[in-house]
């Protein structure tokens, strides 16, 4: 049997396979490279970078929930400068496709970040995080303001020819409208979804389990919601979708592609099984063989409704 073609395109971005590592769940790649060969993975998305370094939220930052977890890391990151000098060299070496995720508190900050990073050859595309639920200034406010999402897309588009992916918030009732705006303003793709807003309290201390009070819910618990958001976008808007939310194995990944995703990202699973990405690639190959698929891109939006 011939090699199965696992490559997929996200706009002008060509990936050797649809497996991407989600922002904030693999840092800048070095720790997870002890478990997995990053050069084999479709792409790696960096932890959200902001213009200046961010300390992040005080502990406790995470807590487990049924089939999921809440996090409020608060976008702790090294900032653009340190990222360029200290993180990019490693990421270049590992020979994976690098997508740089950017978070900001103002439209100007998004633009400034892109301007600075644009010249970095190693960066093959930008994922713009307009949907982090754990920072007060930006985050949710942008993510649930359709005009802001449109403006950010437009302004960032004006600054770079690299592929632009807008990472959408699931915490609204009309995610496809956001995807429509992204398309209209020249975005190349959307990522769906970021985490859902959630909380948990200790019943004896009566305090929130997470210092930030609310956090972002991720993991298998949110998979049905993420799939529904991808489906909604796929049915209404003609734009490549990167599916995210609760993927733990190749079966979950196939489900996202059938529903409408051109590629997918894995997040929480990396914490539990840092080898999941390679296992998923193997699983995808076997599934394609079993079901006589020669090009994995044939799976995209192949749902039968």
């Amino acid at each position, binding site marked *: 049997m011939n090699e199965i073609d696992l490559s997929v395109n996200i706009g002008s971005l060509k990936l050797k396979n649809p497996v991407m590592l989600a922002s*904030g*769940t*693999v*840092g800048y790649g070095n*720790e*997870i490279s*002890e*478990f997995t060969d990053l050069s084999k993975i479709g792409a790696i998305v960096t*932890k959200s970078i902001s213009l200046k*370094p961010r*300390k*992040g939220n*005080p*502990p*406790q*930052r*995470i*807590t*487990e929930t*049924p*089939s*999921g*977890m809440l*996090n409020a*890391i608060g976008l*702790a990151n090294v900032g653009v400068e340190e990222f360029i000098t200290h993180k990019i060299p490693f990421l270049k070496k590992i020979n994976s496709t690098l997508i740089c995720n950017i978070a900001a508190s103002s439209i100007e900050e998004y633009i400034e970040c892109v301007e600075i990073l644009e010249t970095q050859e190693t960066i093959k595309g930008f994922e713009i995080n307009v949907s982090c639920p754990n920072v007060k200034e930006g985050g949710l406010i942008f993510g649930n303001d359709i005009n802001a999402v449109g403006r950010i897309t437009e302004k960032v588009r004006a600054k770079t020819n690299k592929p632009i992916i807008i990472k959408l918030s699931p915490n609204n009732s009309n995610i496809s409208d956001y995807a429509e705006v992204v398309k209209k303003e020249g975005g190349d793709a959307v990522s769906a979804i970021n985490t859902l807003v959630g909380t948990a309290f200790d019943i004896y201390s009566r305090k929130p389990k997470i210092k930030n009070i609310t956090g972002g819910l991720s*993991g*298998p618990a949110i998979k049905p919601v993420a799939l529904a958001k991808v489906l909604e976008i796929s049915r209404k808007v003609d734009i490549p979708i990167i599916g995210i939310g609760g993927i*733990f194995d190749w079966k979950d990944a196939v489900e996202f592609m059938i529903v409408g995703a051109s590629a997918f990202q894995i997040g*929480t699973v*990396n*914490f*539990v*099984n*840092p*080898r999941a990405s390679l296992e998923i690639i193997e699983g995808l190959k076997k599934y394609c063989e079993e079901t006589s698929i020669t090009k994995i891109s044939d799976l995209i939006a192949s749902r039968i409704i």
Partner: protein
Amino acid sequence: MFIDDCVVASNTKIAENTFLIGLEVPFSTEKLLPGQFFNIKVSNNSFPLLRRPFSISDVIENRIYFMYKVVGEGTSIISKKVKGETLNLLGPLGNSFNIDDSFSTAIIIGGGIGIAPFPFLIKKLVNKNIQVLFGMRSKSEAHNYGLVNINYSSDDGSIGLHGNVIDLLDVELKNSDETKTKIFACGPNAMFRALQKYLTNKNVLCEASMESAMACGFGICQGCPIEFKNNPSYNLICKDGPVFNIKDIVI
């Protein structure tokens, strides 16, 4: 880095709610260091979802022992594992206690299940005087697995000194040469806060093994921050720790 299922060799109760589980590992245990930990997946499904971190408590040939207290779902599942079943280990993780500096007396302070990492440390402390201070709520938590020269303290006075480990330490330090003594401590944060305060104006070295909720255990989730006194950004307990100089950290 090792990550795989390991077979349970034994799992025995050593005190109330406290167990010691031995796991056969297929790698050389020679390079394991006291203070390091493993992150353990207790089921092969999504309940509980995350791994649970446990310090290396002891190492005998190709067996690693973890001493654990049943506090919730994860530890309860582990306590039911019998010989021949498996647990998925990821590790070894973290830094370790530093035993190369010049001290002749090691004072080991364990609060409750915080005693867990010390049997392994004690094995590595050759040619040192060792004094173990083991504080607990009540006698039912007491055991002596892998320990030597134990002084107990208990909140309810049911064993040893009626008081806490800091009271024990106070007695102990009065008989010691501070410059030749090093303290190794592990326990709840309340204990560490008291210890930090007690040591403020003292010159004795003290390393503390800290706990935190953890998702990954190896530095990718940023879930386990710890503040340093003179550092604007957080350190990570799983990667930069779990062992810190108690003077450096904000507890």
